[in-house]
């Protein structure tokens, strides 16, 4: 296991509770324990640590986003979660099992939608469904796919190739594909970053409503503060790389019923937003000093709940 950092395990005065105490409340769907990823330097003589000593958990039915600047290893972390990359050190336990490779239990929505361009929207989803349930008949697969295409409002575009779909529609197919295999965990890698603001908004709304209705466990990477606040129950803040760390974990204090249109009217919206901006603009760079000056415990990063009170 990981080498424990020489920081004492006492509670952070800035936080009201710790990660450890909070997650014990419900079963963890994902438990990231001491995760580290390093790459060899170009000369091959030494290694560069992208991130290390990452500890946090995602509860069942929870929507967690990870926010941080480019280069902090967000995508790498998600790839390790997906089983597409392996950690240099540490483990991830997903649904009680250590992740050793990709699994149909963890569906991924890729940043670039990653649709197979020679297949129609329907075929792209059917490809996934057939992987999940190889014994299903053609009709059953088609019916199942249609359900998810309808869910993302793509009824009528079943037989279009990705090149005939707009960027938003493509990502809808990507989302439908991920949901169609009914995974235990949905992993999303900045799924809306390539879309224009209007499209992004409507997709966020759709995603939110699907997740609320299905109780899907989601882990999503983003660098968009509003997106994080709208979608996430908790936001994991990652400092800049190399040697990125989990700085703290923000609990969303907005009501569960928040929508994109009313979110900013809530009292807690600006404190949280400001906290995140402050983090991204300043603290993410200065975190090294923060660690040394405080009693930071990587196993239990501080939890913050910024509010108007």
């Amino acid at each position, binding site marked *: 296991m990981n080498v424990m950092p020489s920081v004492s395990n006492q509670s952070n005065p800035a936080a009201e509770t710790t990660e450890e105490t909070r997650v014990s409340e419900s079963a963890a769907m994902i438990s990231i324990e001491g995760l580290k990823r390093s790459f060899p330097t170009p000369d091959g003589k030494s290694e560069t640590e992208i991130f290390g000593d990452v500890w946090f958990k995602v509860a069942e039915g929870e929507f967690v986003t990870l926010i941080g600047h480019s280069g902090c290893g967000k995508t790498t972390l998600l790839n390790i979660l997906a089983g597409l990359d392996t950690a240099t050190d540490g483990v991830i336990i997903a649904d009680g099992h250590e992740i050793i490779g990709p699994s149909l239990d*963890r569906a991924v929505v890729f940043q670039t939608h990653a649709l197979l361009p020679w297949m129609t929207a329907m075929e792209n989803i059917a*490809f996934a469904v057939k*992987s999940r349930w190889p014994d299903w008949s053609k009709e059953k697969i088609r019916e199942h796919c249609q359900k998810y295409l309808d869910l993302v409002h793509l009824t009528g575009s079943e037989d279009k190739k990705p090149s005939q779909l707009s960027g938003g529609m493509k990502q809808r197919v990507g989302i439908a594909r991920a949901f169609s295999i009914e995974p235990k965990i949905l992993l999303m890698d900045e799924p809306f970053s390539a879309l224009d603001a209007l499209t992004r908004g409507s997709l966020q709304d759709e995603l939110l409503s699907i997740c609320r209705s299905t109780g899907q466990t989601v882990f999503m990477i983003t660098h968009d503060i509003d997106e994080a606040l709208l979608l996430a129950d908790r936001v994991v803040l990652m400092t800049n790389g190399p040697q990125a760390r989990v700085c703290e974990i923000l609990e969303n204090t907005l009501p569960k019923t928040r929508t994109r249109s009313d979110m900013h009217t809530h009292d807690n919206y600006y404190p949280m937003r400001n906290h995140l901006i402050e983090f991204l603009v300043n603290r993410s760079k200065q975190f090294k000093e923060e660690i040394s000056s405080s009693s930071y415990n990587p196993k239990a990063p501080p939890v913050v709940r910024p509010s108007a009170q």
Partner: protein
Amino acid sequence: MSNKVKLQALMVSLVLFAVFVAGWHVWVEAQKGPAVDMDPEYAALMGITAKGGSAMPGPLEVGEAIWGHIINPFYDNGPNDKGIGIQLAYSIARVLTGFFLACIVAIPLGFFIGISPIFQRAVDPFIQVLKPVSPLAWMPLALYTIKDSDMSSIFVIFICSIWPMLINTVFGVAGVRKEWLNVAKTLEVSRSRMAWNVILPAAAPTILTGMRISIGIAWLVIVAAEMLVGGTGIGYFVWNEWNNLSITGVITAIFFIGVIGMCLDFILAQATRLVEYAE
């Protein structure tokens, strides 16, 4: 392209053709020198060029010769004189046999090399050395080892077709977008489904492009190979006409070689369009 543009292009093509034919006719007429004064007994033994004529045929003569072949393509006057249809069929059969054998070898082999970076590096020097070898340089080796000129021609086609296909397959397979592979991996797709449903369709346009290059080369090479070993085929036809120093026959053969080459390319181009995808 709009119909109007197509029509205009066709008109320009026809004008170009007419200019070419007219230029050809004028040039051939200009070649004809003054009649040489000769003893009639001696002249009876001489050919037309010796008497001031030109061996270069005009467009009418060539057109007539081509038409003669078109209306009677399958005559058979013995092993050394067959209709152009039969000769072309021999050549096409050889090209297709060699080409399909090359497909059978190059595509699976390229596939395995393409998915393995180690193999890619290991095999690369061999490909680089063998690729630039003129296919005809293999002919003596083939004749000696295979001991059959027909099989040797097929082997030469095989060996010249294999490189573009192999290289393109390796390139296509190695160049499959990582995210497509990742999608398949996260779906726990089996190896065979990965190969057939992801890698192959992804690499197909590149592979087909390689095949198109290959068939073009194969068609170029078969003419040369058949000129070398003789017997049958359009290359033999050219050689036989050349043997008789018949420029008309050679131009006729060039015309047919061009048309068939165009058809082969067209077929592969259509096949490429079938597997092409836009991203």
